[in-house]
């Protein structure tokens, strides 16, 4: 192999750089960190099952957006048979009022900034 | 062939560096605009399109004008355009890239631009504009590149190039017609509501585009030692001549219709443009300047002695370019909005960030033209004879 020394050194460096996130987590003990959520409500039921909401709440919100804005339909028949008003600020935030202790926890952990809050109002934005 | 852009004189690198600097300045200004919103421009509730769309309109014309050298060369075998045609095609590519950039910087939510494709609206001319501009970009890029590649390899170009080039001819007309339709279908804006807008756009395009091409050919001759041929330039100058005359004629025809029929709603916009009623008067001064430039350019162009004067022609082309940039840019956009639908007079002044972003986009266009032309010239020179 030509330039064997340089190539092997390069490969080793590359692998180390690739593993930096995992090395960082294990050295700082952050690996075991899982965001802690406070739902902010004593309600036991959401508009969808917990497992479904965990993975697909953004898809549900997308469906809600289409239904409410483009079709003008504002009611949603949930899995538990109850009817909810389609509204991020009205229904979701009604229970999860402390967005910083619920929504933001996972979003910050995953490094996501959903743009919903640019328009949709939550407690901190309300100004009387 | 791209490797040809990597070797050049110091002057070349300084020019590229300068253009790149303009692009960076424009880009940083754009980041500020993304953060603050379009409010940092001079546009407002009443004048909601300004410098960006003005330049967009002008540059679509430059892009479409490639047809003025492609058509004679490919359909009528005008051999004098042999070395010019490919330069025209690459100028068109750079111009289309600039038009797309101007649209993007004008959007309030640019990250959503693909909504146009996800939710197509065939009644909207902006949808069709996206379609035809993308098509034209690809057409010219592929045709130009593979034609050049064929010259480089000293072979005949691939068989599919010719049909695509032929398609690009009506397509060029279509891009500028669609652009005109963006404006001339709006019942809300009487200044633009004229069937003559599309022909006016085409006439001014065929005046300004070839004028720019002539200037670039002189640049290529001076800085890269590549002569496209005196005959070719003279023929292009002839095209500019006819187009500028027709452009002036169309303007006069518009003035007659508007002022003879004396409909206040229609006259108001032209009066604002030429008299600057209630405004700062800067726009009307520019418009008169544009008109004077146009008339002077025409006088110089129609006389063969002046048109064939190689020291004078670049200046004449510059006059045509500036004149049409004013007339078709802000001279088209602003009077469209003033007087407002509620008959108010408001003024528009582009802000510094707005100008910097504009300059940045022109820098990008200049960069593309420089790089493309360098490749073309090197290939042509190395394969000449």
């Amino acid at each position, binding site marked *: 192999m030509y330039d064997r020394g340089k190539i092997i050194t390069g490969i080793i460096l590359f692998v180390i750089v690739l593993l930096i996130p995992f090395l960082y987590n294990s050295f700082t003990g952050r690996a075991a960190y899982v965001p802690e959520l406070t739902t902010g409500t004593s309600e036991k039921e959401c508009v969808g099952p917990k497992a479904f909401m965990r993975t697909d709440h953004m898809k549900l919100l997308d469906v809600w957006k289409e239904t409410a804005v483009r079709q003008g339909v504002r009611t949603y028949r949930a899995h538990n048979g109850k009817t909810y008003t389609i509204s991020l600020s009205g229904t979701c935030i009604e229970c999860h009022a402390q967005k910083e202790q619920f929504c933001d926890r996972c979003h910050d952990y995953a490094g996501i900034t959903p743009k919903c809050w640019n328009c949709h109002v939550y407690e901190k934005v309300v100004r009387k | 062939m791209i490797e040809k852009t990597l070797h050049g004189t110091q002057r070349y690198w300084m020019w590229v560096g300068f253009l790149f600097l303009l692009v960076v300045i424009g880009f940083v200004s754009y980041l500020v605009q993304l953060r603050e919103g379009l409010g940092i421009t001079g546009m407002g509730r009443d004048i909601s399109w300004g410098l960006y769309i003005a330049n967009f309109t002008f540059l679509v014309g430059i892009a479409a004008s490639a047809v003025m050298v492609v058509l004679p060369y490919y359909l009528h075998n005008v051999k004098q355009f042999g070395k010019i045609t490919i330069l025209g095609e690459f100028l068109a590519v750079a111009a289309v890239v600039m038009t797309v950039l101007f649209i993007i910087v*004008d959007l*309030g*939510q640019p990250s959503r631009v693909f909504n146009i494709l996800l939710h197509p609206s065939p*009644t909207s001319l*902006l949808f069709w504009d996206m379609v035809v501009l993308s098509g034209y970009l690809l057409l010219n890029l592929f045709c130009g590149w593979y034609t050049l590649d064929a010259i480089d390899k000293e072979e005949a170009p691939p068989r599919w190039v010719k049909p695509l080039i032929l398609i690009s001819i009506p397509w060029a007309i279509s891009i500028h017609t669609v652009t005109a339709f963006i404006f001339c279908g709006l*019942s809300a804006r009487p200044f633009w509501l004229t069937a003559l807008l599309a022909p006016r756009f085409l006439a001014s395009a065929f005046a300004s585009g070839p004028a720019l091409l002539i200037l670039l050919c002189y640049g290529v001759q001076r800085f890269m030692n590549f002569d496209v041929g005196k005959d070719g330039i003279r023929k292009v100058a002839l095209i500019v001549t006819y187009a500028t005359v027709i452009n002036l004629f169309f303007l006069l025809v518009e003035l007659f219709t508007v002022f003879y029929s004396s409909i206040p709603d229609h006259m108001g916009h032209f009066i604002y443009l030429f008299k600057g009623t209630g405004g700062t008067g800067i726009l009307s001064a520019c418009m008169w300047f544009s008109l004077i430039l146009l008339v002077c350019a025409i006088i110089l162009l129609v006389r063969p002695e002046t048109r064939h004067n190689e020291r004078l022609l670049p200046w004449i082309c510059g006059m045509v370019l500036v004149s049409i940039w004013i007339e078709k840019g802000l001279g088209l956009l602003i009077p469209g909005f003033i007087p407002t639908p*509620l008959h108010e007079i*408001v003024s528009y002044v582009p802000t510094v960030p707005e100008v910097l972003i504009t300059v940045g986009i022109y820098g990008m266009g200049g960069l593309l033209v420089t790089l493309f032309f360098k490749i073309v010239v090197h290939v042509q020179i190395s394969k000449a004879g």
Partner: protein
Amino acid sequence: MKRRDFLKIATLTLAGVSVKPLTNLFTKPALADISSQGTQRGLPQWVMVVDLDICGKKDECTDCIEACNRVHNIPLIKDSRHEVKWIWNAPFDSIFREQGFGRVHEEWPKKSVPVLCNHCENPPCVAVCPTKATWKREDGIVMMDYHRCIGCRYCVAACPYGARSFNWKDPRPYIKEIHRDFPTRTKGVVEKCNFCEERLARNLVPACVEACKEGGLIFGDIRKEDSMVRKILSTRLSIRRKPHLGTEPKVYYLL
């Protein structure tokens, strides 16, 4: 038959058959059809009436404007270039100049008239939107989808009434009171009066109509024979803004 002949005939047939669907894509009457579709499905056709005999009697009255601004979290921006307004007052002379106003009282040209989106039957703004972020509902309301708007401002250019506002910057700092019941908007999208469709969904009249204690604004379903709007429009003379443009506005002004 030779292959060439077959191809010629096939192309001509295809071209001929696609003429009607292609022209359908472009014809504006399609927008007016939406309302007849809605009527057939039993949906209301909303109409607003402004009684100019009542409106403007109170000096400098802005009750309707303030109600709209409050209910919809509309920002108050002093720089007139960046203003956002859904309903506002303008002089009669600016609004109805094309129609003229005869030789009535001298004060009429200066008379303040509330203006808003007309929710046209034939909205030019809907035709030009490249993403269908604005569309006409079957009940006649011209809606805005702030999620989809790309902020190209083509609709602003197309509106003959200047009814649309663009968010030139983030509106939130400029909103005096932010209410939870309605979202704010973000920079880079266009907005306009929505006939309070979120209130209509709860069987409430638009905020401006409710706010006018003198009854200067009347709102209702023009289909219904016993509606106030139907009755008043058949008894009193009314005009609309720029009728010659064929937009068929649904905001009527009683003289």
